[in-house]
């Protein structure tokens, strides 16, 4: 073995020893404590604490049973007397009561110094927020059916929210809430609906999360909060939606609907878009057609009705023109013509259509019309250039067809002429 190899070998050995110390020592410490030894002997079920705890984030970070439940884990097992470990004088608490659990967890999770040393990124206001939540308030009133820490996180198999198996992993959050909120029997006494999960799953947000696995898609806690979970009040609906859809919120706030809706207590965004079942909006939801939301309040002759009709007509005109341009471009693309520029220019018209749809939230028909006018002019220009390219190609195709036929006829005549000359020579 060369000197260099020996040195490498020593380095690897030191690294392995270091890793063993970091990984194995805490685990050994825990598996050697009397709580684990006794409970492993008396517990057999796969969901028993000693089975679950091995994957628990606390256990993995060397937080022992006694760190939560108190007592002295160094005694009891060898002596054959568990009461030595579970001695109240040594701080043994045992199993906390249902309504004591938030306080129980917050001993560490609300301790700034403790958390800073271990998980400085984690928030420490969960308990404070929980007390403001509907769950927290009801728990305080003695309702032992409402959610507290372990209802969502589990008790002995708590995983990091970054772990895909965790009940608080972003894709699992709706299911975690649905454990209670989609249970009709469980929720019966609270008189609240249980179709939120079903509606959310079918919504644009739910489909983004479940079908496209977009981690930034909003889930229950994006609007309701998590530890401070509460229904959205009238005033906070727009703020919740505005977290992502800020421009729409800003437009609505300046619109003629803002004040009257506020006075009438009409919930802003969800009046038209629903709350859990937020679907992709369609153009016929605006205007005066039978599927329009506008005619639910506005009737023929009032300003709102006229504005709705004008906005709808402006958007329809632009949309039809874009569809026409798209179909022309598609036809010409298929004929092998390079029509990239027309297709590219059409994106400007499409941008105007999206902008106009967005500006509906201002309920200002003139703004919407001006934007669509701009889009219509761009779409017309695209149609014109696409048609010119198509006509040019058609002329070339026809020209080639004509020339080809002419060449074939000439070749045939030439053939006949040669045969005639050959016949004369033979005679």
């Amino acid at each position, binding site marked *: 073995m060369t000197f260099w190899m020996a040195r490498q070998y020593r380095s690897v050995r030191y690294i392995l020893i270091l890793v063993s110390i970091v990984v194995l020592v805490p685990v050994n410490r825990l598996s050697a404590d009397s709580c684990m030894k006794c409970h492993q002997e008396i517990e057999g079920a796969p969901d028993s604490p000693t089975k679950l705890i091995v994957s628990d984030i606390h256990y993995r970070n060397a937080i022992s049973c006694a760190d939560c439940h108190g007592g002295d884990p160094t005694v009891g097992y060898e002596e054959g007397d568990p009461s030595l470990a579970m001695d109240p004088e040594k701080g043994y608490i045992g199993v906390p009561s249902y309504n004591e659990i938030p306080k129980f967890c917050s001993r560490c999770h609300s301790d700034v110094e403790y958390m800073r040393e271990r998980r400085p990124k984690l928030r420490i206001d969960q308990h404070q927020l929980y007390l403001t939540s509907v769950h927290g308030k009801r728990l305080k009133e003695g309702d032992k059916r409402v959610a507290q820490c372990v209802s969502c996180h589990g008790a002995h198999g708590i995983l990091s929210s970054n772990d895909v198996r965790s009940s608080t992993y972003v894709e699992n959050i709706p299911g975690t809430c649905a454990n209670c909120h989609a249970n009709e029997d469980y929720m019966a006494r609270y008189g609240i609906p249980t179709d939120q999960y079903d509606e959310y799953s079918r919504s644009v947000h739910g489909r*983004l999360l479940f079908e*496209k696995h*977009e981690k*930034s*898609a909003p889930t229950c806690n994006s609007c309701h909060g998590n530890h401070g979970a509460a229904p959205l009040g009238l005033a906070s609906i727009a703020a919740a939606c505005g977290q*992502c*859809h*800020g*421009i*729409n919120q800003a437009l609505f706030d300046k619109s003629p609907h803002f004040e009257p809706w506020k006075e009438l207590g009409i919930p802003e965004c969800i009046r038209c878009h629903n709350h859990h079942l937020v679907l992709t909006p369609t153009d016929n939801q605006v205007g005066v057609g039978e599927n329009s939301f506008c005619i639910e309040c506005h009737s023929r002759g009032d300003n709102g009705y006229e504005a709705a009709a004008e906005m709808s007509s402006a958007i329809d005109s632009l949309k039809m023109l874009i569809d026409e341009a798209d179909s022309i471009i*598609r036809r010409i*693309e*298929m*004929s*092998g013509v*390079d029509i*990239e*520029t027309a*297709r*590219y220019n059409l*994106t*400007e018209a*499409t*941008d105007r259509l*999206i*902008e106009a749809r*967005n500006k509906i939230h201002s309920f200002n028909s003139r703004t919407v019309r001006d934007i669509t006018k701009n889009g219509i002019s761009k779409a017309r220009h695209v149609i014109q250039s696409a048609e010119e390219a198509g006509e040019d190609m058609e002329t*070339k*195709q026809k020209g*080639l*067809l004509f020339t*080809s036929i002419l060449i074939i006829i000439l070749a045939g005549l030439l053939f006949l002429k040669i045969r005639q000359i050959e016949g004369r020579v033979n005679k």
Partner: protein
Amino acid sequence: MEGKVKTRRSLLNWLLTGSLGTLILATIYPIIRFIYPPDKPEAVRNTIVAAKVGELEKNSGKIFKFGTKPGILVYTSGGDYRAFSAVCTHLQCTVQYEPTRGDIWCACHNGRFDLTGRNISGPPPSPLEAYDVAIRGEEIIVSRRTG
């Protein structure tokens, strides 16, 4: 002897006729495909000259045509070129570079992306498609990432 000559001549005739037929087919086939083209669109463009070196000032961006879709080339304050699809992942509006904040902004619904293309706020659910940028001589070449 005469039979041998006849066999050789018929072989030559056969070869000549075959060659002529092949020539006619090779001429006519592209003509027919031009007049009656195949029912499929043009291939997607994978590389383009997005700008010339020196065309962009630092902390600015440029929208360029990349096939049928817009792309965005950003010359960062740090002197790097970055290129992305300029099609917002929310509702497909065209995004733009915002020098005051040094990020990419979609005016339609106030979506924002950082200079790695990652969606950082607003409704866009996913990042912008990132392209590779290379400088060849005086040209800034943008290419789609393969694989």
